[in-house]
C-alpha cells in the first residue's frame, strides 16, 4: 500500500523520484479507492513530457488529514496516440475537465468519458486540425426549441466567452459554455521566461482580479523549491494582502449583483465601499490590484506602523457602512424575491462536479484551503470556513457578505498585535539569485477569493523549471454555472453569472 502513492503537505517540495510510478490500472484502482470519500477531491491531474516519456501526476487533497496524495503513471511518448484508457469521469464526474485537458494535449482517449471536448485550443494541442470555430456544441433537434448564442464578444468590458443556450420559450433547457478565447499559453511562458522576476510578473497576470492570490501561490511554491524560509511577519503580511483582495472583490461583486437586479442603492454603496480598500492596497504597494506586492523571498513594501494605523482606520469606516448596507439588503423584500431559489445547486451536485471555494461552500460543502491545508499566515490563525445550505444566488450573495466580515475580523485581530510586526530581518532581500532543488516537485495551494488556486512546479536536473502547471478555481466552477441555469428563465442568466463571477483568463491560461 505504501508504495503506491505518497502523501505530501501543501508547499513542501519533494524529489520527484519519491512519487511512485504505477501503471494505469493500478492508478485507476487507487483513485477509485480514494475519491468516494467526502473529504477527498482532485486538485490537479495533468501530464507532461518527461524525458522520453509522458508522465502523469494526479493530486488528491485529503481535507481531514491535511495531506495531499500524489499518484503518478507514465507512458512511452510514441505510444500515447493508440492509448484507450478507462475513464475516471464515468464514476467521478469531477474528473471530466482534467481528462478533457489530457485528451486535448496528447490525444489520449478515455473510454467512458461522455464527451472529450476541447477546453482551450492551445497552440501545441494534439489535433491541430480542430479549430475554435468548429467547437462541437451539444444540440437538440426540435421545432419548439431555439438556440441563443451570447458572445464571445459582449456588450461592455467583459472577457471573451461564448454561451450557448437551448431554450424552450423563456426557459433554458441547457447551457453550454465555450471558453478558450483568452488562451495565452501562460504555462509555456513560465518555461520560456528564464528570469524569476519575469515569472513572478507572469503569475500576477494569470487572472487580473486574483493578482495577489496567484502571485502568492507562485511565490510559496518557488520559495519551497529554493529552500527559502520566510519570516512570520512576511507570511502574515501576505495573508493580509490576500484577505484585502477578498474583501475588495467580494464587495465589488455584491455591487455588481445589485446592479443586475436594478437595485440602485446597493449598487452605488457597495461600489463606493470597494474603493477605499483597493486604494489602501495602492497606498501599500503602488497598485490597486496588489501587483508588485508579492515577490519571491521578500517584499519591497513592508506593512509599516503608519500603514497599519491607516488600514485600521480604513477598515473601521468600511465595516460600519458595509454592515449597514448589508443589513438593508437582507431586509429588502424585492431583493430577496429576486435572489431566492434562483440557480440552486445541491450539496450532492457541487460535490459531483468538484466545485471549490465559494461555489462549494454556498451549498454546504466546507472546502476551504485556509482550514484544510493552511500554509503561510494561515498557520497562525485558526480559520473556520463558513458554509451555507441553500445553494442559490442569495446564498452566494450572503456568503460573500459573511466572508467579508470574517476577513475583517481576521485582519483586525492581527494588525493590532504589534509583536508580529517586530521582525524586520529578511524582509527586503528580494531578487537575489535562487538555488532551486533539482528534480523536485512542489504543489502549492492557496484559497484565493474565488476558491483554491493550485500551482505545481517540477524542476529538471539543472535546477530550472521543467514544467509549471496552473489551476484556477474557475476550471471546476464553470460547470456549476452551467448546471445552475437548467430549467431557469434565460433572463436569470446574468445574475447567476455574476453570482459566481468566474475567471475566463484563469480557465484559458
Amino acid at each position, binding site marked *: 500500500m505504501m508504495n503506491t502513492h505518497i502523501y505530501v503537505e501543501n508547499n513542501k517540495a519533494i524529489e520527484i523520484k519519491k512519487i511512485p510510478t504505477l501503471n494505469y490500472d493500478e492508478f485507476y484502482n487507487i483513485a477509485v479507492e480514494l475519491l468516494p470519500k467526502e473529504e477527498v477531491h482532485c486538485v490537479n491531474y495533468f501530464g507532461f513530457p518527461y524525458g522520453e516519456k509522458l508522465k502523469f501526476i494526479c493530486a488528491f487533497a485529503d481535507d481531514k488529514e491535511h495531506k495531499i496524495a500524489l499518484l503518478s503513471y507514465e507512458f512511452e511518448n510514441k505510444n500515447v496516440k493508440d492509448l484507450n484508457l478507462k475513464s475516471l469521469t464515468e464514476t467521478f464526474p469531477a474528473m471530466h475537465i482534467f481528462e478533457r485537458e489530457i485528451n486535448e494535449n496528447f490525444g489520449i482517449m478515455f473510454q467512458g468519458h461522455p464527451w472529450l471536448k476541447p477546453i482551450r485550443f492551445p497552440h501545441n494541442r494534439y489535433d491541430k486540425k480542430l479549430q475554435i470555430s468548429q467547437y462541437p456544441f451539444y444540440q437538440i433537434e426540435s421545432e419548439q426549441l431555439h438556440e*441563443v448564442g451570447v458572445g464571445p464578444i459582449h456588450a461592455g468590458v467583459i472577457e471573451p466567452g461564448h454561451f450557448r443556450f437551448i431554450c424552450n420559450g*423563456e426557459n433554458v433547457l441547457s447551457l453550454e459554455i465555450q471558453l478558450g478565447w483568452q488562451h495565452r499559453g501562460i504555462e509555456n511562458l513560465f518555461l520560456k521566461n528564464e528570469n524569476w522576476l519575469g515569472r513572478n510578473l507572469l503569475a500576477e497576470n494569470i487572472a487580473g482580479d486574483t493578482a495577489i492570490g496567484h502571485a502568492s501561490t507562485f511565490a510559496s511554491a518557488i520559495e519551497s523549491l529554493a529552500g527559502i524560509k520566510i519570516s512570520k511577519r512576511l507570511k502574515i503580511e501576505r495573508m493580509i494582502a490576500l484577505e484585502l483582495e477578498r474583501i475588495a472583490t467580494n464587495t465589488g461583486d455584491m455591487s455588481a449583483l445589485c446592479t443586475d437586479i436594478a437595485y440602485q442603492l446597493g449598487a452605488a454603496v457597495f461600489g463606493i465601499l470597494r474603493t477605499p480598500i483597493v486604494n489602501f492596497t495602492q497606498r501599500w504597494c503602488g497598485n490597486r490590484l496588489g501587483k508588485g506586492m508579492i515577490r519571491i523571498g521578500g517584499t519591497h513594501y513592508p506593512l509599516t506602523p503608519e500603514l497599519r494605523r491607516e488600514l485600521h482606520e480604513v477598515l473601521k469606516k468600511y465595516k460600519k457602512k458595509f454592515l449597514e448596507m448589508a443589513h438593508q439588503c437582507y431586509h429588502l423584500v424585492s431583493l430577496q424575491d429576486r435572489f431566492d431559489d434562483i440557480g440552486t445547486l445541491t450539496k450532492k451536485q457541487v460535490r459531483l462536479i468538484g466545485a471549490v471555494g465559494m461555489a462549494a461552500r454556498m451549498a454546504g460543502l466546507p472546502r476551504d484551503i485556509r482550514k484544510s491545508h493552511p500554509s503561510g499566515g494561515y498557520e497562525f490563525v485558526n480559520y473556520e470556513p463558513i458554509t451555507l445550505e441553500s445553494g442559490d444566488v442569495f446564498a452566494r450573495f450572503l456568503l460573500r457578505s459573511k466572508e467579508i466580515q470574517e476577513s475583517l475580523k481576521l485582519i483586525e485581530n492581527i494588525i493590532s498585535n504589534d509583536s508580529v510586526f517586530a521582525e524586520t530581518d529578511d524582509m527586503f532581500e528580494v531578487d537575489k539569485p535562487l538555488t532551486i532543488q533539482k528534480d523536485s516537485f512542489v504543489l502549492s495551494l492557496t484559497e484565493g477569493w474565488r476558491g483554491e488556486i493550485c500551482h505545481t512546479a517540477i524542476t529538471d536536473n539543472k535546477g530550472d523549471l521543467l514544467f509549471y502547471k496552473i489551476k484556477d478555481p474557475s476550471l471546476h466552477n464553470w460547470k456549476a454555472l452551467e448546471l445552475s441555469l437548467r430549467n431557469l*428563465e434565460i433572463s436569470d442568466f*446574468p445574475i447567476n453569472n455574476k453570482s459566481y463571477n468566474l475567471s475566463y483568463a484563469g480557465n484559458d491560461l
Partner: protein
Amino acid sequence: MTGMALLLAFVTAFFIPGIIGAVKAKSCGRKAPSLIQPMFDIFRLLKKGSVYSNSTSFIFQIAPIVYFATIFLGLFFLPFGAEKGIFGFTSDFIFLAYLLAIGKFFMILSAIDTASPFEGMGANREAFYSMLIEPVFFTIMGSLALVAQPPSLGNLYANAGALSDTPYLSWMIIVFIIYILFNIALVENSRLPVDDPKTHLELTMVHEVMVLDNSGFDLGLIQAANALKFALYGGLIANFFLSPEFHLITNVAIFLGMGVLFAIAIGLSESFRARNKMKKNSLYIVLMFSLAVLIFFLILAMNSKFILT
C-alpha cells in the same frame, strides 16, 4: 384653450426624463446631471444619420416614425381637465389606446425584422406585457365612463367627482385609480419593476433590447417618443386635479406640478427596490387588473347600477 394640454405636455416631456435621472442620482448620493441632459442627447441623436443592417426591410426603417407619430397624435387627445383636447369624441379613449398599440405593434415588427435572437425575445416579452396591461387600462376607463355620458376623455374627468354621492369617497376611489394609472405608466414606459431601462444585459431587457439595432435619427425619435409617452401618462394623472372652478393659471400650475411629482415618484420608486423576476411580471400586471375590476364593481355598486343582494 383647446391646445393647452398639448402645449403643457410638451413642457413636461422636456423635463420628465431629466427629473427621473436627477432623483435617482440624488437618492444614491451621486451628483445629478443637468435636468435637460436627456434632451441634449435626443437632439444630438436627431442630428445624426441612421445605419441600417442589410438584413432588415422597410419595416425597420418606418417603425420609429410610426411609433413617434402615434404617440404625438395621442397627445392631441389629452384633455385639459374637463376641457377636451384638440381631438375628442365619444369613446375616444379606445381610439387612444389602439393608436398607441399601432406604434408598439410596429416596434415589435421592427425588432423581429432584425432577426436577432435577443430582439425577438424582447419583442415577445413586450407583446405579452402589453396584452396583459390593455384590459387594465380599459377597465379603469370603463369604470370612469360608468358615470360620464357620453364617455369621452374630457367628460370622464369632468364627472370624476361624481363617482359617488360623497366627494370624500370619490376621492378615495380616484387615489386608487391614480395608483393603477401610475403602474400602467411604469409598464408602458418600461420602468421598474417590470423592466430596467438602465441595464446593459440583453438577456434581461424588455423594451431596450428591441431598439438595440436603431441608431442616430431613428434612436432619437424613439427616445423623444418615450419622453412624450411619459408626458401623456403624467397628463392623464394630472387631469384629475384640475377643476373648471380654478383660475387658468392655477390649473396650469397644477398640471405642471403633477408632471414633476409624477417624475419624482418614478425616480423614487426605482431607487430603493430591485426589479421583478421575469416570471413575476405577469402576476404583477394581473394584480393591477384585479384592482381595476374591484374599482369597477365598487363604482357600479355605489351608483346603484349593480345591486348587491
